[in-house]
């Protein structure tokens, strides 16, 4: 048993111990600090271990415990991929725990959060380490279960109960899909160890089936359209730091599962597998961000934007698949690196944004943006870091979101070298979708920040708000710093990812840190290059130059006055643009096909006193197409079958009698 793996396994064990302890002591006053302190320490250790392994030797280490499935044992393995995702998970875990140290104090039901929070972290760690189907699924479902308990933390709220219900049902649907996929990979003999699956290559049909099942299984957890229905319900329902974990980290664990099976266990893919992933990714990106734009609940908005980012990641994974299938390892490496890079970035800024939302929530008690506004005056630090989060997620240079999306686009530009016509046509279309979703994301976060933090207060709750505790601030500031660093030093990340890409796609991106001025050059400098550091430097320098010159040589006089507003008298805050009205032009443009939205205005007759009314009717198309029929069918079936509970004894006897006669007939007709 390898020492690193042993250490990494002690982590989850310690977390579980913490969970048990928390279950006992959760009603103590000091429990919050103890639990989050413990998780903070443990995650930090795990993070350090995984990071050192990722930076150091890219070798593999494995261990087997006499647990789980008897004749397979609980197998665990540490390789580049799992090390990277361990970093993602535990970085999230560390910072979330830091945030929790402060945020957790506002928790009304600590005994329903503290025991499950460490368990949730442990589950995610174990998924990433697992090396056989059983322990993988066990940890996977344990993770779902723990997060379900966290979603149900505030169970008195009907909406939360519904969210939890839909979440766990979808989760177990996904698990079933994964189970079937592993069943195919394991074969009738039941060789559930990943090592065995790696060597045995399924035929084309089986491979296709596995991929579809993985899209269903991992996709439902990650939130691919149309399996996303649970996500915008469940993620916001949990306490904010848990929402951050679920949105920022758990979805990444799902992506890990997808990569592990499709890139690692499945062997050589067929090119059309890539097409499916590409298309689903593109559609998910666009629909996700459109939904986010229509949202006025801050946390739901963030949840939907998670769906968009997942779409981006899957699209670039699909690209990597297509390249890999066509024997273009360098291009595959580019696309794959882009995907992983985006995984990391999204875990940064999505956690940051959820923390910000949590801060707003604890400061004002509001999630509804229509009741917020002007918070930039009340929560200066929070609003600043939230702004950084918005800029990063909107893929604007020089922050990290842009760096990864830039790589994705670079990968798309390699696609003309692909031989298949299908890909030739689809890839640019998907590229267009990604571009569209990027632009919409910018719009969405202009709205998110503008409505929440800018303008004037829309409710009394905002006046009472004041800056949150220093733990939360520290967590957010750290994440903001990460967003900037990953943005201006992308080469660092890309190089550390090489140990992940090499074994999976058989190639790595060229070394970046050797480039002059730390710029990144995916293929060749004459072809394309980007230097976040210099762009950042140029902008700051020129901005400060301009400011300096003007204040030096021109006026720097300043007078406060009432807003001009085309000479309109100072209107009430309600006259400001709201979240809904902000999104109205875009709804006009895209709503027609995305939501079958319809606007009806009833304008009273001239001189009539009643107000004019604008009614907007929108449909969640995915829900209506996929989910309602299913629930309807189940309802119908139960209604019909339920009569069987109310028969007379004679009728029951008749059933038995008929069954007997039928069986005898079968026997009589038996050859």
């Amino acid at each position, binding site marked *: 048993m390898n020492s690193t793996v042993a250490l990494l396994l002690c982590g989850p064990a310690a977390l579980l111990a913490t969970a048990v302890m928390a279950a006992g002591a959760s009603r103590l006053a000091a429990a919050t600090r103890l639990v989050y302190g413990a998780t903070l320490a443990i995650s930090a250790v795990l993070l350090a271990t995984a990071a050192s392994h990722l930076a150091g030797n890219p070798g593999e280490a494995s261990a087997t415990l006499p*647990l789980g499935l008897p004749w397979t044992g609980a197998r665990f393995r540490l390789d580049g991929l799992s090390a990277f995702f361990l970093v993602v998970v535990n970085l999230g875990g560390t910072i979330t725990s830091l945030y929790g140290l402060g945020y957790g104090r506002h928790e009304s039901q600590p005994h329903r959060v503290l025991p499950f929070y460490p368990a949730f972290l442990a589950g995610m760690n174990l998924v990433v380490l697992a090396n056989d189907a059983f322990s993988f699924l066990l940890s996977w479902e344990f993770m779902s279960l723990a997060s379900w308990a966290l979603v149900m933390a505030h169970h008195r709220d009907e909406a939360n109960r519904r969210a939890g*219900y839909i979440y766990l049902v979808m989760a177990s649907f996904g698990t079933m899909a994964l189970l079937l996929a592993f069943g195919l990979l*394991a074969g009738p003999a039941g060789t559930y160890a990943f090592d065995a699956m790696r060597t045995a290559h399924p035929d084309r049909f089986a491979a296709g089936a596995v991929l579809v099942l993985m899209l269903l299984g991992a996709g439902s957890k990650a939130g691919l359209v149309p399996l996303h229905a649970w996500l915008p319900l469940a993620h916001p329902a949990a306490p904010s730091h848990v929402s951050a974990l679920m949105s920022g980290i758990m979805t990444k664990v799902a992506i890990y599962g997808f990569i592990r099976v499709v890139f690692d266990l499945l062997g050589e893919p067929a090119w059309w597998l890539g097409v499916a992933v590409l298309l689903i990714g593109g559609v998910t990106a666009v629909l996700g961000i459109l939904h986010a734009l229509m949202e006025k609940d801050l946390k739901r908005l963030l949840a939907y934007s998670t769906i968009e980012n997942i779409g981006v990641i899957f699209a670039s994974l699909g690209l990597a698949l297509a390249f890999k299938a066509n024997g273009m390892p360098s291009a595959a490496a580019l696309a794959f690196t882009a995907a992983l890079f985006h995984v990391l970035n999204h875990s940064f800024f999505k956690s940051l944004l959820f923390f910000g939302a949590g801060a707003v929530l604890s400061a004002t008690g509001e999630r509804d943006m229509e009741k917020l506004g002007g918070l930039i005056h009340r929560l200066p630090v929070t609003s600043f870091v939230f702004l950084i989060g918005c800029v990063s997620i909107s893929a604007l240079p020089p922050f990290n979101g842009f760096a990864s999306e830039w790589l994705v686009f670079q990968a798309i530009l390699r696609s003309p070298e692909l031989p298949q016509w299908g890909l030739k046509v689809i890839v640019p279309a998907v590229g267009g979708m990604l571009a569209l979703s990027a632009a919409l994301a910018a719009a969405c976060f202009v709205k998110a920040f503008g409505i929440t933090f800018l303008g004037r207060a829309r409710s009394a709750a905002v006046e009472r708000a004041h800056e949150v505790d220093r733990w939360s601030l520290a967590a957010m500031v750290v994440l903001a710093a990460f967003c900037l660093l990953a943005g201006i030093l992308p080469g660092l990340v890309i190089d550390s990812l090489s140990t992940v890409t090499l074994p999976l796609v058989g190639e790595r991106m060229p070394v970046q840190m050797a480039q002059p001025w730390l710029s990144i050059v995916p293929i060749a400098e004459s072809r394309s290059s980007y230097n976040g550091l210099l762009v950042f430097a140029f902008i700051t320098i020129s901005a400060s130059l301009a400011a300096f010159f003007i204040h030096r040589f021109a006026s720097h006089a300043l007078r406060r006055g009432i807003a001009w507003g085309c000479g309109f008298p100072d209107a009430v805050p309600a006259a400001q643009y709201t979240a809904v009205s902000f999104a109205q032009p875009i709804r006009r443009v895209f709503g027609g096909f995305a939501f079958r939205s319809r606007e009806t205005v009833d304008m009273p007759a001239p001189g009539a006193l009643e107000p004019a009314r604008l009614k907007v009717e929108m449909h969640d198309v995915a829900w209506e197409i996929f989910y309602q029929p299913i629930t309807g069918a189940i309802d119908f079936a139960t209604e019909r079958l339920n009569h069987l509970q109310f028969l007379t004894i004679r009728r029951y006897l008749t059933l038995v009698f008929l069954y007997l006669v039928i069986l005898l007939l079968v026997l009589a007709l038996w050859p």
Partner: protein
Amino acid sequence: MTGFSFDAVAAILFIPAGAAAILAAMPNYKMTALVNVIASLLTLLAALSLFVTDRPAPGQYLLVDDLNIVFIVLNTFVGFTTSVFSASYIAHELETGRLTAPNLRFYHAMYQIMMFGMNLAFVSNNIGLMWVAVELATLTTVLMVGIYRTHEALEAAWKYFILGSVGIALALFGTILVYMAAQPVVGEGTNAMVWSVLIEKAAHFDPALLSVAFIFLLLGYGTKVGLAPLHAWLPDAHAEGPTPISAVLSGLLLNVALYAVLRFKLLLAASPQAIGPGPLMVTMGLTSLIFAAFMLYRRRDIKRLFAYSSIEHMGIIVFAFGMGGPLANFAGLLHMVMHSLTKSAIFFAVGHIAQVKGTQKISEIRGLTESHPGLGWALVIGVVAIAGLPPLGIFMSEFLVVSSTFARHPWLAIPLVFGLLIAFGALLLRLTGLAFGEPRGGMAPVEASYVPMYSHLALVFAAGIYLPAPLVAWFQHVAGILG
């Protein structure tokens, strides 16, 4: 020297029988409850001693082999924990006046007779004797289901009795047919009914007779397993009887009938020309699974809800054994054990719930985790376990069943998974209502002990994480026997 030699099998049989006689004579109910517990404990110890003492050679009437040890130990264990639970439960029933002291005497005597019947069914090597034993167990439970004398209770008992006795008849005819098939080969007399003899010579039996016999046996004993469409007695019997009996019914009696079916499946499998028992069992299993899954949605009575979930799980188990093969059989055995433990634990919890809330209506029970945390979370764990979520035992068996089935016959796995998901949705829906939300119903604390309940859950949890090697080897061996 010819000293005293301890005969475990005899002990397993005579302790309950003797206890029954004593209990029938004892007036004081507190004493009877205690004696009941002690007797069950002794039976359990005797059963455990089967591991250490050398097994008696298969005689004309009794047999102990690897297959039935599993059942015996499980049976006596759950019998013991249930008797502990029943002690506190019955006390409460007496306070509320639903039962009278004479009832209790009857109840405890019957309890031991039932245990005797079930143990006899397991150890009997003679298909006639096994039949008698199963019927004995059935009839005693009939009487206990009717013990509350209420309209509903008598209804349930009556339904149980009529359907049960038809089952009895069918099973008996099947048994006779087996004898007829064996008689020309084995020769007249008792030998033609001794299972261990039959299994050796089964290859030469008349396949046509065996096939007919199996159909009758499958229906006869299947009625007691509660397979749809023979299940009708099961939900009401569970819902209207005393909760300990519901626990025993789901946890044990169904296993007894299942055990009988398995024995005859082996017999049939040994005769190549006869119809394959596999397809029949797979069909019945899937039917029960999917049917029960849908029935779960409209249930309003909490005990009836879990009764239907028992049907569902019996479906899964029968399906697994019908699939056959080392993986599926292993899964079937594991699933059966896990289901017995979990389901009886759930019924313990339900018993406490019904007593503190004063109702069995699901709609009138809310927010248990808030009003009774210990009870509520136990229910959550139990339902999570029964719904097949890790890290609890049933997940492992479902994992094996589903994945191995999908690898062998993909088209069989689809309905299986479908049924599992439907059932999961229903159970979780009810659980969300019961355990969470604004508390509703009685708030009085539970005075009974949670030990039986939590001990079962602990076992289930442990099994989900870690199965000890000897147990595994032994299960694999049994799975091998089951072919």
